[in-house]
């Protein structure tokens, strides 16, 4: 008996001493919607269920409540900052404990190529995704291949990657494309009868309507966010990541606690920021994010960081003061309040919050709104790898709604 107990104790000790294993968990869009229904943090942060209040368009961010379109669920328009500019993105997938994520093939039937307009789609044909959401190797990142079929072909003849490859029809590489497979009734979050908007600047965003496509012979729905939204390593189709910083403070237990402010999307992997890749304002970065806490403890110079919130949002100020303390939510100067573009700074965090009270705001501030600024003003120990990737294209960046 004693030896049995000792054996169990030994096994338990061994289990406790095991190094943590990468979880290898993928939450697809459907899983995030299920999570929203179950009120999980990831689910509610990513999806607003039909008829539910749109978080950033309701109290305390603004007066009253604006509900999501009652006919469909909405992808939360998450305000963010990227390369010092206001931005917003949606989250359609989350990977925990993955070493990397790959682009998969997407086949588009065409009958030829017009020298001016490009590929000529086979009428009534659907896209054919090379990988479905049942695989944890699924990703919303696709390398397009145009499949040249004879004109007049049955548009439903090709329904799977296997059929495409076995058909012998020519394959022509096309653009990279971001499209997420999920349920039929989901769009970028918006109120009924209105387009989606950036919650702070109220700039209108593109509506993204689900469309049908094939996967392994079955019909699915997908939301297309367009071409050239990300980059891959061409040799192995690994999607290139950028760092996403969730600004955080140390809690009483010594663990980082995320501040309820917009995250900052970097332009490259941690430690290697790049120039923002956004030709014509359409960002090709930011759709694949490696998440980190950036802990604002003892930033450079020993300043007290500040979160900018205009006095015109008293409820939001009150909530933040309750969470962070008044010292971190200084009252902006009159000059700051008079700035017409002040809403672009809503919830933007500055290295030293006293800059809000100065007359030359916002030039007086060093903002935590770029990868370079965050990495330059925080020590290397301030970054905690969350071992998490998240995906979702920018729906707003620097005044453009790509």
């Amino acid at each position, binding site marked *: 008996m004693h030896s049995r107990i000792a054996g169990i104790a030994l096994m338990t000790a061994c289990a406790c001493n095991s190094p943590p294993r990468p979880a290898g968990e993928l939450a697809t869009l459907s899983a995030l919607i299920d999570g929203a229904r179950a009120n999980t943090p990831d689910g509610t942060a990513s999806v607003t269920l039909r008829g539910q209040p749109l978080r950033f368009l309701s109290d305390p961010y603004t007066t009253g409540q604006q509900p999501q379109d009652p006919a469909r669920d909405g992808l939360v328009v998450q305000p963010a900052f990227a390369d010092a500019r206001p931005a917003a993105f949606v989250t359609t997938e989350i990977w925990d404990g993955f070493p990397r994520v790959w682009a998969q093939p997407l086949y588009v039937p065409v009958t030829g190529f017009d020298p001016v307009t490009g590929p000529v789609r086979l009428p009534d044909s659907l896209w054919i995704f090379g*990988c479905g959401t049942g695989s944890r190797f699924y990703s919303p990142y696709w390398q397009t291949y145009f499949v040249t079929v004879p004109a007049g072909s049955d548009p439903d003849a090709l329904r799977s990657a296997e059929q495409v490859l076995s058909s012998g029809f020519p394959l022509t590489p096309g653009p990279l494309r971001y499209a997420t497979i999920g349920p039929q009734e989901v769009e970028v979050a918006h109120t009924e009868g209105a387009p989606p908007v950036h919650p702070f600047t109220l700039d209108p965003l593109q509506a993204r309507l689900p469309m049908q496509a094939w996967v392994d012979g079955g019909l699915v729905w997908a939301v297309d966010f367009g071409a050239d939204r990300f980059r891959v390593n061409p040799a192995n189709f690994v999607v290139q990541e950028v760092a996403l910083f969730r600004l955080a403070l140390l809690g009483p237990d010594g663990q980082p606690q995320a501040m309820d402010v917009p995250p900052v999307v970097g332009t490259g992997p941690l430690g290697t920021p790049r120039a923002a890749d956004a030709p014509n304002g359409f960002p090709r970065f930011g759709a694949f994010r490696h998440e980190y806490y950036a802990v604002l403890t003892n930033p450079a110079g020993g300043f007290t960081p500040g979160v900018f919130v205009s006095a015109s949002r008293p409820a939001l100020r009150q909530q933040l003061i309750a969470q962070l303390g008044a010292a971190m939510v200084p009252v902006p100067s009159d000059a700051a309040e008079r700035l017409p573009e002040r809403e672009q700074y809503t919830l933007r965090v500055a290295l030293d919050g006293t800059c809000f009270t100065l007359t030359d705001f916002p030039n007086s501030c060093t903002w935590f709104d770029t990868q370079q600024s965050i990495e330059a003003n925080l020590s290397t120990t301030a970054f905690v790898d969350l071992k998490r990737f998240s995906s979702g294209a920018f729906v707003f960046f620097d005044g453009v709604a790509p």
Partner: protein
Amino acid sequence: MKAAGVLALLSASSALAQADAYSPPAASQGSGLQINGYADVGFAVAQGNGTSFAPGDTRIPADYGVDTFATAVNSRGDVASTDSGGRFTNGFLPRSMSIGGQPSIFLSTFDVDLKYVPTIAPLLLFGRVQFLPRYGGSGNETRVIVEQAFARVVPFSSLELALSIGKFDSVFGIEYLENQANLRTNITPSLIARYTTGTSLGIKAFYRLQLPGIWSAISLNAAATNGGTLVETLSPPDISLVGRPIGSARLGYELNLPSVEVKVGTSGEFGPRNDQHDVTVHQWLLGVDLRVVYKGLSLAAEGVKIHQDPGAADKSNGLGPQTLVSEFAARGAYATLAYTLPVSDGALRKFTPYLRYERRRAQFEGFPAYTVDRWTVGFRLDLWDELIAKAEGLLNGEVSGLPKVDNNVFTTSFVYSF
């Protein structure tokens, strides 16, 4: 008394060797150290680029939608190539001879067996070291492996019971009996050999009960090992990654009539997957097998079904660290018909043509199921007692769920034993 014990040991070992097939019968050997072995020299050419990856297929992982084991060129199951062209693979691969689509001669295996039978103890100590000369993308990739190393004891002279500890053959099914090129009728392993023929480290017990009144015997072969019976690239045998053994066993019945021999068996395996670290992530296998020998004609058939649970992202196997532990299920079967024609007592002793048909269906988590089949036709020439020449063609077919690819193989094998 000692002499009686040794005689009993040798008598039992003779029968046990038939069951284990790892060495020549012990009865023919005296005590002391013996060194045996063989060399397997091959020549092969495969269609296409030597892989089963279809041109234009960029799905990832590259090894989830095709049968990468199809282009086998030798008795170890090494294939002509596993070069995915840079596409990510997740460790569902065999070893490669890296000849691609080029015809090439190669040395598959140089095998040295060391056997020691003490004179005063009912023991057999056995070691098998294999030299595998290889050349690949990183240059010289030659490996030296300890294929087997075990001690076997026959504790009771009155019982056909043997206990082994160390690294030894599988106990699952029947194909492991022909793992080595010098024992194998044909050249290449079946499409299901990857699940049943791996050697592993642990303990094993074999018991056989003779029923002479009905010309029969029943046997049980059971093992608890690190890696189970999957081949080493899929499930590393040398350490336990999960801290728990995998149990495997075969229950057999044999009918030994004067003119015909029939052997049937059923096998099972259960335990944690040893290509990851979570003890709750399991795998199981079930199998059946049949052998019939009538004069020179022999039929061997075997079927297996396997299921592996999904796990985290800590996959690791004989090919190194991988990523996701994907759920996997497969089933398959083969039947081999061979006829051994005695020719002469001179140089050409026997001529054995053979035909094998097999089919395998597999599915990885989230990927469509696919089915492949294969015809293998060839012959074996036994020259004297030391030299074997074999040649065979493998006609690989894609039945459903995967793209067509040219991956047929012609291969030969020249085996000399010493």
